[in-house]
């Protein structure tokens, strides 16, 4: 018995010791040391050039000595889940960037601070309506618009020249050009367009006078089962037929800008500014030279370019922030005219700042120039909390596109998608 006792005590003692060092020792990372204040800012990958954000923080530090600003760059992948949990925590990021299609989804949760009273300080009067729209929910302001961007057609000047094609102004010219490109070089895709580029489709739907979703009475319903969506999809299908891109993938898998275009054999593609930049860099790394031209997605008639989806981001303050006032001040500073002017210049106009006064005059023939021309016809997705659920994977819009491209009847596929959209958007 004594033996057993000793053995047992020994084992128990050992375990107690280990348990103590396992649970105790390494509990670090709490930053709320009293005194010195810190605010945390979450920006998305690629949104904030380092030079610019350092500048903002320098100016902020000058006004608020003793306050440090911790900038954390977040990846887009999985960001919705991350932001949702972060907003529920006691120490959320004080300022955070939100995609403009997702802002309403967070505004409704109470996780974002109401900025309606700060409108004056933020200089809300200068914001264009299209940008303000996404920052508000039910008449209250929950974020400050930051930047917007839209897609244009990026083309290989040499390939176009060789085929004798000039940037088109109408859809018909566009298609005629693609035919010429195909004839000129059968080994090159006249356009690379994956089957699930739903932002592109959105623009086509709007061109037809359709909507992705409409409010009908108190409820939203999808708009893909409509004749407008069907004819938009018909044109998309026509465009896609010039491409060998997969019908069941979007532009990010594989990444069209860095995985596909640099391999060559692509005469044109539809992308954002940073995608064009990424492609240029990848080509350079591969020892080739990029010679890109840009034109707005053509409209049905020459007087007006095609409607485009106006992507972008807003900056919000977390409701649970411990330093709301400081956070608001940082927000006002970053989105104010001075810093936005610097911002637009830093990104060479490839992102539109939140006010016309801060606009950067783009170089002729640049991406920014084409984007500016197309952007006048920019629209955003329905501003309602449920929209964020719709565009979450598996995205019914994408499924709709793949089905139609594979030959299913657009009306039928559209009705199925509308059912799913209604199911998600109204929650």
């Amino acid at each position, binding site marked *: 018995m004594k033996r057993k006792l000793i053995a047992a005590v020994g*084992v128990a003692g050992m375990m107690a010791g280990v348990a103590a060092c396992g649970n105790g020792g390494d509990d670090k990372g709490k930053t709320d040391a009293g005194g010195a204040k810190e605010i945390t800012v979450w920006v998305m990958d690629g949104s904030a050039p380092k030079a610019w954000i350092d500048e903002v923080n320098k100016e902020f530090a000058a006004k608020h000595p003793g306050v440090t600003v911790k900038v954390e760059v977040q990846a887009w992948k999985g960001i919705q889940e991350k932001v949702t949990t972060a907003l529920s925590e006691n120490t959320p990021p004080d300022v955070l960037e939100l995609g403009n299609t997702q802002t309403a989804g967070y505004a409704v949760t109470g996780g974002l601070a109401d900025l309606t009273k700060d409108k004056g300080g933020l200089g809300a009067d200068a914001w264009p309506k299209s940008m303000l729209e996404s920052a508000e929910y039910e008449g209250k302001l929950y974020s400050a618009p930051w930047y917007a961007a839209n897609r244009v057609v990026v083309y290989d000047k040499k390939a176009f020249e060789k085929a004798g094609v000039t940037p088109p102004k109408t859809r018909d010219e566009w298609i005629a050009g693609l035919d010429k490109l195909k004839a000129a070089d059968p080994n090159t895709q006249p356009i690379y367009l994956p089957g699930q580029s739903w932002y592109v489709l959105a623009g086509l739907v709007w061109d037809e006078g359709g909507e992705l979703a409409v409010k009908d009475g108190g409820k939203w319903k999808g708009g893909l089962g409509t004749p407008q969506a069907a004819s938009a999809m018909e044109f998309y299908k026509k465009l896609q037929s010039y491409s060998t891109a997969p019908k069941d993938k979007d532009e990010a898998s594989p990444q069209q*800008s860095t995985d596909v275009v640099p*391999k060559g054999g692509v005469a044109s593609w539809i992308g954002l500014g940073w995608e064009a930049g990424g492609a240029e860099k990848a080509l350079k790394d591969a020892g080739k030279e990029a010679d890109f031209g840009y034109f707005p997605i053509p409209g049905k008639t020459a007087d007006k370019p095609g409607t485009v989806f106006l992507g972008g981001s807003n900056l919000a303050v977390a409701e649970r922030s411990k330093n709301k006032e400081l956070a608001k001040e940082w927000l006002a500073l970053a989105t104010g005219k001075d810093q936005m002017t610097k911002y637009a210049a830093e990104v060479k106009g490839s992102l539109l700042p939140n006010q016309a006064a801060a606009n950067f005059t783009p170089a002729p023939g640049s991406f920014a120039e084409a984007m500016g021309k197309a952007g006048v016809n920019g629209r955003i997705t329905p501003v309602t909390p449920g929209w964020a659920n719709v565009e979450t994977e598996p995205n019914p819009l994408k499924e709709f596109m793949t089905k139609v491209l594979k030959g299913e009847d657009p009306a039928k596929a559209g009705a199925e998608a509308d059912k799913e959209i209604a199911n998600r958007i109204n929650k």
Partner: protein
Amino acid sequence: MSTTTAPKPAPAAPQRPRLRTRRPLRPAAVVKNAGALALAALFLFPVYWMFSSAFKPSGEILAKDPVFFFTPTLDNFTKATGVEFFWTYVQNSLLVTVGAVLLALLVALAASFAIARMRFAGRKGLVLGVMMAQMAPWEVMVIAMYMIARDAEMLNSLGLLTAIYFVMVLPFTIWTLRGFIAAVPVTLEEAAQIDGCTRGQAFRKVIFPLLAPGLMSTSLFGFITAWNEFAMVLILNKDKAAQTLPLWLTQFQTAFGNDWGATMAASSLFAVPVLVIFVFLQRKAVGGMTAGAVKG
């Protein structure tokens, strides 16, 4: 903790009992060996692809006609290890993994000894419980776990992470060790006690060495589980100072281009410790396992 580190292989491990003398190059042997080679190639191919992609120049990783011959480059490794917090991740991963494994070994050793060697009420229930605990759906429990940690103000804690990984691997460890202890004949233990050992000494000197393969294979399992764990640390530790290597692996795939080279370089580096431990432990585990065959 020293008790668990690298126990000597079982004393006098008998040589593999099957000494078959074969006439060389029978057709059957050729088929056998060719099959083994083909299988090895099949299993190795994805691994080979990971390592070779890690050394490829970025433009040649994805290609319509795969590139098999290329000029190797270390760029991808430089990029992968050059990220901010890299060494913090390494340190955290090691701390959390080793901590969880050691803790699991100790706690499991005690529990499995009791289960294998002692009679007590609730023993059967405990066995069942341990068995069922292996079914624990950790992946779907992340939200519940997160809410608990959040409300207890325990987010961004390496301690909690260690504790969770420890419990993740504990059931399997108990389960396996229990089998090994049960396989050691009681008579051996008794003999030692007759020779004047205390029960504790008998455990240390007789049972423990025979457990070597069990300890090896369970620590291997525990190491792989904890080393690879992703879902928990993703949701619990948003603070980069408290994150681990699995999160590092995913950060090269962004909306701005997937840096496949860096991803594969990071994955290769990430796999190396597991491989090393594997090679080291697996041999002893298998070798020692034959020794455990005393149980017959």
